[in-house]
């Protein structure tokens, strides 16, 4: 099937990633071989697969919020009622992108405290920007004559949005979601500072205890997840772009 063509390989990669993460002895053996003199090889408090589960929880919840809020804001500022907010949102979006995520997070901790929930809030806030920016760009990119014919045929504004604007903007929006999620996988490692678990836990543990193998464990898991999610969302983006030609 055409729709599955771009997604099949990333799905397999995801399966392989989870299988490797589940094979704890494999990690012990590989990292042990790479760092022969080390006594601390793996993160002691959680198995690699558990870390994946914690990290995915952080990423999925915060990305879901980012996507929902980014989409809603993007739709709002491109409607006649929200047009007045377009410039403000646009400026905020650009400003937000110049902030390094680590700074955003470190600044957020004093306000939001420690634990899973504040970490999710900080990640969600940072992740809104790419989704919002691309939603606006995608919707603004719908050709004026397509909008005019939709309205002129008698579509209500909601019908026009759901059946014409969003489908045509979808590839651009998914590209924004992809950036947001992949950045989120990396940024979420900082969640360990706030005690939210995830791949940041072994990375920091390794740094504090001078155990490079442990740090490498977290880093490899994070890089792998980022690559797999990037490929998966890239596949979705590709499917949308090729199945629905946007050339007019």
């Amino acid at each position: 099937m055409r729709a599955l063509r771009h997604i099949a390989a990333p799905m397999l990669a995801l399966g392989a990633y989870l299988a490797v993460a589940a094979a704890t002895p494999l990690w012990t053996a590989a990292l042990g071989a790479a760092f022969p003199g080390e006594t601390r090889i793996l993160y002691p408090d959680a198995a690699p697969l558990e870390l994946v589960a914690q990290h995915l929880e952080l990423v999925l919840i915060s990305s879901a919020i980012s996507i929902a809020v980014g989409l809603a804001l993007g739709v709002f500022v491109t409607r006649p009622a929200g047009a007045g907010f377009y410039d403000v949102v646009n400026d905020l979006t650009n400003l937000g992108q110049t902030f390094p995520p680590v700074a955003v997070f470190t600044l957020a901790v004093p306000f939001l405290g420690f634990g899973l929930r504040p970490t999710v809030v900080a990640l969600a806030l940072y992740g809104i920007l790419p989704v919002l920016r691309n939603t606006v760009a995608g919707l603004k990119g719908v050709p004026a004559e397509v909008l005019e014919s939709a309205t002129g045929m008698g579509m209500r504004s909601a019908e026009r949005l759901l059946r014409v604007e969003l489908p045509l903007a979808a590839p651009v929006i998914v590209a924004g979601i992809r950036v947001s999620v992949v950045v989120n996988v990396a940024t979420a490692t900082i969640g360990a500072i706030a005690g939210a678990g995830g791949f940041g836990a072994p990375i920091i543990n390794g740094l504090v205890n001078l155990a490079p193998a442990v740090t490498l464990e977290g880093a490899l898991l994070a890089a792998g997840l980022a690559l797999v999610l990037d490929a998966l969302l890239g596949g979705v983006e590709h499917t949308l772009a090729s199945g629905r030609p946007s050339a007019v």
Partner: protein
Amino acid sequence: MISIRNVSKSYENAESAAVRDLSFDVPTGEVVVLIGPSGCGKSTTMRMVNRLVEPDAGTITIDGQDVREYRPEQLRRRIGYAIQGVGLFPHWTVAQNVAVVPGLLGWERDRIAERTTELLDLVGLEPDAYGGKYPHELSGGEAQRVGVARALAADPPVLLMDEPFGAVDPLTRDRLHVEFLAIQDRLKKTVLFVTHDMDEAVALGDRIVVMRDGMLVQQDTPERVLAYPADEFVASFVGTERALKRLSLAPVTEALAPVGLAEGCQCSVSATASLREALARILELGVPAIGVHDERHRLIGAVSVESIVERFKRPLT
């Protein structure tokens, strides 16, 4: 009938009004062509009919009812609209594009499919070959036909067509005109048609409304606009060849001379041909006159250069 009465419209932050105190009618079952230079307010006028633009002053009625009394979506689903630039939905197939308004009106699936096939046939696109194509797979002319089919889909009594044949070569355009006239002959829609091409206006219009700077300059039949342009502007707009354009509007039967004139010439044109065609044949063959035959190929008269000149001396009513 569409009635436009004393309608004016100024866009925000525009120096001058786009449309000023405009009044004219589109009688039921007729084609009125709105013509004028770029930016004179043609599209604006059309958009006020289906309320994509709201006038600042004046009223527009369709069959006596003010368009403001309708809900905009309801109004628009009853008015076929072929927009300038076509605006097909790029993510839908040709068939899905044509099916939009019937779908909005809640027609049954089978009825929509049947109607789509019928319409693609009507505009000369093989339904099996074209129904499944996407807009980017069409040529400019094919896309414009789909635009026209889409406008006709729900069989609306009123059609607004904004330069629907703007992006095609002259040959294709001529063919589309012939098809359009054949379709209009059968369907008898009330059509407001926009163009800035005088030949197109002459070919398609029952009446022509000439606009300039948002105002109406002249409204009349194509013959009379060509014969009696209201002022210098209209005269220059219809062009120096307006006499030749008039020839294409007049059938040979209007300049019929006795058969004897064409004696010795083994050639004739059909009685349905235009004087333009007859004159072209005369020039081609280098003869003083040419015969005219009826549908059974019986000679019913002749046309000569003199008879054409005489015909043009007669005032138009």
